[in-house]
């Protein structure tokens, strides 16, 4: 629809410089530059490397998004940007850019919550979100269960990881198994050749009655198991370890997500974040949702990982809901709580 506002969204909370453009629920552009290759040899994201890369990539990625959408700066009605949570120095580059575009174009600024943006992005693929829904966000930096009465105004935290994020556990186990960083896709691939029942790894906080997660003990259990094998001179069955580890993670995640839906009488579950690209998580979530009579929504993988489109999608929702824009003196808040959808 032509008369819906055109929103440009900027995401720089970690290593991806993402710029998306949406009109209403329609995705027009999703441009991205990643500094992942620069981080890979360090085995994790190096904040200063990411911040430098954001500054280098920002204006070219914005130009690319405008070209992809076939629009000009003058057509943009609002700017949205991830204000937190994330890496402080990385967030700051995106927030500085967004403020400058807001001032330069004379258009309102919306500083938004990264996690709420991961929820809002699904509207670009599957249309308006049911109110309420439960969202599970699982990535290298986050593992959260959220109750979402309205993504523009009200997001409630049900639980989150007490130690490592799910994606972090994938990275660390990949390293133990000699698989490259980032670990998620490599473990997913290796696991397809293995048996998820070969080894029983612990399931942290499985029956504790909370919606919190813990993956640190699992990671250590895998490392111990592998080291014992190596000590006894036996080969490490990489595929079986990968499949069994992955099963432990997705078993806990899906069990708690379904329990959250049941407890709150919610019939729609959304899964987002980079780990939502995991094929076993998608399969088991579908199976358990079907059995529980819950509708499952998972955006396509490119929209699950960090991107600018999700920020634009949330910005668009805020404009539609009539939420007041942010002031130009907002900080980048590395530990922005989920209770703050906007800043």
């Amino acid at each position, binding site marked *: 629809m032509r008369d819906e506002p055109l929103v440009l969204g900027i995401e720089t909370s970690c290593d991806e410089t993402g710029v998306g453009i949406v009109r209403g629920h329609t995705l027009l552009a999703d441009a991205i530059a990643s500094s992942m290759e620069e981080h890979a*040899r*360090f*085995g994790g994201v*190096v904040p*200063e*490397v990411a*911040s*430098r890369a954001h*500054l280098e990539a*920002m*204006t070219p990625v*914005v*130009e690319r998004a405008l070209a992809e959408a076939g629009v000009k*700066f003058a057509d943009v009605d609002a700017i949205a940007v991830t204000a937190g949570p994330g890496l*402080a*120095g990385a967030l*700051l*580059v995106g*927030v*500085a*850019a967004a*403020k*400058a*575009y*807001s*001032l*330069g*174009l*004379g258009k309102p600024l919306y500083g938004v919550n990264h996690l709420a943006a991961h929820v809002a992005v699904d509207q670009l693929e599957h249309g308006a979100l049911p109110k309420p829904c439960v969202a599970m966000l699982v990535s290298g930096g986050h593992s959260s269960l959220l109750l979402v009465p309205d993504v523009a105004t009200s997001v409630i935290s049900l639980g989150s990881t007490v130690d490592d994020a799910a994606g972090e556990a994938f990275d*660390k186990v990949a*390293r*133990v198994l000699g698989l490259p960083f980032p670990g998620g896709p490599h473990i997913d691939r290796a696991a397809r050749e293995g048996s998820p029942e070969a080894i029983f790894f612990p399931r942290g906080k499985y029956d504790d009655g909370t919606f919190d997660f813990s993956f640190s003990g699992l990671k*250590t259990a895998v*490392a*111990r198991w592998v*080291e*014992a094998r190596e*000590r006894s001179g036996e080969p490490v069955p990489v595929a079986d370890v990968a499949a069994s580890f992955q099963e432990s993670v997705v078993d806990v995640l899906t069990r708690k997500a379904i329990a959250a839906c049941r407890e709150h009488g919610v019939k729609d579950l959304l899964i987002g974040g980079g780990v939502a690209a995991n094929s076993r998580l998608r399969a088991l979530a579908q199976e358990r949702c079907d059995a529980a009579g819950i509708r499952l929504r998972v955006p396509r993988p490119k929209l699950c990982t960090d991107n600018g489109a999700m920020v634009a999608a949330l910005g668009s929702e805020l404009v539609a809901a009539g939420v007041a824009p942010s*002031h*130009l*003196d*907002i*900080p*980048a808040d590395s530990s922005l709580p989920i209770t703050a959808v906007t800043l």
Partner: protein
Amino acid sequence: MLVLAFDTATPAVTVAVHDGDRVLADATTIDARRHGELLVPAIGHVLSEAGADRSDLTAIAVGTGPGPYTGLRVGLMTAQALSTALGVPAYGVCTLDVLAHETGLETQFTVATDARRKEVFWARYGDARTRFLGPSVDKPADVATDEPVAGAGAVLYPEAFPNATGPEHPSAGALAALVVERLRAGGELDAPWPIYLRRPDAKVPAAPKKVSQ
């Protein structure tokens, strides 16, 4: 000509608007931890005080450091984004050159600013317009001098730089004046890219630690 100038490479967040003849309005706040919060509101404030609209601007001038990276990037990102949004060029100037310009000195001197980690960013000048050494980053004792020294380095390390002179922090008014002068003279101006001088702190990890006893 209407130049918007700003610098965030030191604890000073400094903004000015210059019409080619003089500074129409300027504002400086010293706050080493809030560059991102302060800069864009200050730009809006200085523009309105100058009675200028953003669409009147003909160029952006920005200090390129060296300076602490987090604050430095705020200025450069703002300059690049404003430049593309407004369709006007953005010019970069070494922040130490701005301080040098402000001294007005005609004899040899040094500019040194705080590089944190007990080091200074520094450069040496033949006069207020001529840099002949640097910019570099070093321990104050390794570049100690009895020459006049401008910038916060002289305030922080008097034992290495006993002869403090000129401004402690750069002003965007001086940055704008320097850019106007170089544009008129057809002189060289830099791209709006940061001068870092240090590589990111990151080590390639060793093999994973064992968790078993």
